[in-house]
């Protein structure tokens, strides 16, 4: 299998186009901030950004001017509070309006499932007696065609033009292994037209084959593989580095004031060429402090059936 390994700069330039629907997934865990920063640096425009939880990464990207629309299910800074740049766009149209399309978590997950499964819609038991369907005409009631005539709501498939997911490790053809919180990395990857896997480490194919149950995304759906350590900071990669909760708290202060935010973007995104520069700017002590102790999984015996 030929290698799909490339740089973040080339992968973003190649796969992300103005006007695209882009999903950088990862539920608290494995959120690829480095890809978001590269999209800002390359001044992509008019993107529809999809994510269950827009998180600080989409606040940064919205402030960076790349987005005209947001698709989401929970719009906040987890454990901290608000996403101020996004709120300014929605509440005050400052500096311009931002279109939104919102679901519940289960609705968003099932949009990816429908997209990944080539289904026209996905039925769920949710939204009953809620106002959410009144503000999102894509969430529609439907009666089961079977005997019990159960009322459900259906959500449409989500097929991002580009899905960007982070994994702890992948081989050069994109077979990716994830442990810890899985979010909907798998669903988003299978739903995407073009797929970028970013990982902490590119490993030999034999490492993947040693533990196939841990493979979440097969290389067959992957277009580009980027090795980028600490790419999820201030989010985390289980077993590699902790969530930088202090930065999530700091972001609340940075993003409250548009000028402070613009200065931050200049210093930490535009003035840096690559994520390697970002790692260096934080410094080794910062990364050491985020490293967890060990908690190894036990081994299982797959058996050899020769």
């Amino acid at each position, binding site marked *: 299998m030929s290698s799909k390994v490339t740089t973040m700069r080339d992968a973003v330039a190649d796969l992300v186009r103005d006007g695209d629907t882009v999903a950088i997934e990862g*539920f608290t865990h494995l959120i690829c901030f480095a890809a978001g920063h590269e999209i800002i640096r390359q001044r992509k425009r008019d993107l529809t950004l999809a994510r269950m939880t827009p998180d600080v990464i989409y606040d940064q990207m919205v402030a960076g001017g790349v987005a005209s629309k947001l698709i989401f299910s929970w719009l906040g800074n987890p454990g901290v509070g608000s996403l101020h740049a996004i709120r300014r766009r*929605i509440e005050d149209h400052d500096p311009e309006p931002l279109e939104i399309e919102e679901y519940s978590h289960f609705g968003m997950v099932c949009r990816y499932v429908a997209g990944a499964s080539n289904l026209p819609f996905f039925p769920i038991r*949710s939204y009953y007696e809620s*106002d*959410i369907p009144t*503000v999102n005409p894509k969430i529609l009631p439907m009666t089961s065609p079977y005997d019990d005539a159960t009322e459900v709501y259906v959500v449409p498939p989500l097929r991002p033009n580009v899905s960007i997911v982070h994994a702890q490790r992948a081989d050069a053809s994109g077979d990716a292994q994830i442990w810890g919180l899985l979010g909907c990395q798998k669903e988003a990857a299978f739903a995407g037209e073009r797929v970028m896997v970013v990982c902490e480490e590119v490993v030999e194919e034999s490492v993947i084959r040693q533990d196939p149950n841990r493979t979440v995304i097969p290389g067959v759906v992957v277009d580009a593989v980027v090795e980028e350590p600490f790419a999820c900071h201030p989010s985390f990669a289980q077993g590699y580095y902790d969530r930088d909760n202090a930065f999530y708290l700091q972001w609340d202060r940075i993003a409250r004031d548009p000028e402070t935010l613009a200065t931050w973007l200049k210093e930490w995104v535009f003035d840096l060429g690559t994520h390697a520069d970002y790692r260096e700017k934080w410094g080794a002590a910062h990364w050491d402090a985020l490293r967890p102790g060990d908690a190894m999984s036990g081994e299982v015996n797959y058996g050899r059936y020769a």
Partner: protein
Amino acid sequence: MSAVAEPDLGYSRTEMMIAASARGLEGATNCFVGVGLPNIVCNLAQRTVALDLQLVYESGVFGAKPERLPLSIGDPTLATGATAITSMFELFAFYLQAGLIDVAFLGGAQIDRFGNLNTTVIGPYDAPKVRLPGSGGACEIAIHARHILVIMRQAERSFVDRLDFRTSPGHSGDPAHDAARGWHGTGPTSVVTDLGTYGFDDATGEMTLITLHPGMTLDDVRANMGWEPKVSPDLGETPAPTPEELRLIREELDPRGVYAK
């Protein structure tokens, strides 16, 4: 909120909320946990009234055993040592929608007398005064978890006569309608605030004041809600936090006072 004198009782109002909420989990087994206060409440209940409580997080964790107080519902400490980590699809479909969850915590910016919750917007949806986070999993949790426990600080702007937006359904005000819904969930069963505890009236589905916390008065309650509260004829006083509850909160669960100050 309207000024309520802070009595010196040897514990904070937040500690009273935590202790009262944890007691509401007596006998519960599978509990959907939110971040912040519910998290510390569930961890307290696991050490006091619900020893077999499984902590379930929408991030895909069943049976979490956190070694530190998680700062978000996706904290890595929830993954290490858990019973199971599932995809979010499995968590919402197989665990929640299929009816395995006994009890879940919800809160919001606004609640009405029937326990409907708003976490979406203050003001009109298309021209919001304050854009709130939205549903997350709350809408489906409200529908599928057998019992909903609400923890919210009480204030006139949050205990409102009419919600600006109904994100998560509570009781409808018509118990016959509620019984015919066919949901796993029976709606909110209790609300714990910093002033007292409420149940919901069987005949009307309306929030009813059951106990006042020590030092709080009916006038404090009235001054901090947007409707005339229904009061139980057996209105009592919430038992104060026990020394053991306070020790667990202060020494084990939240030694840095992040939540329980």
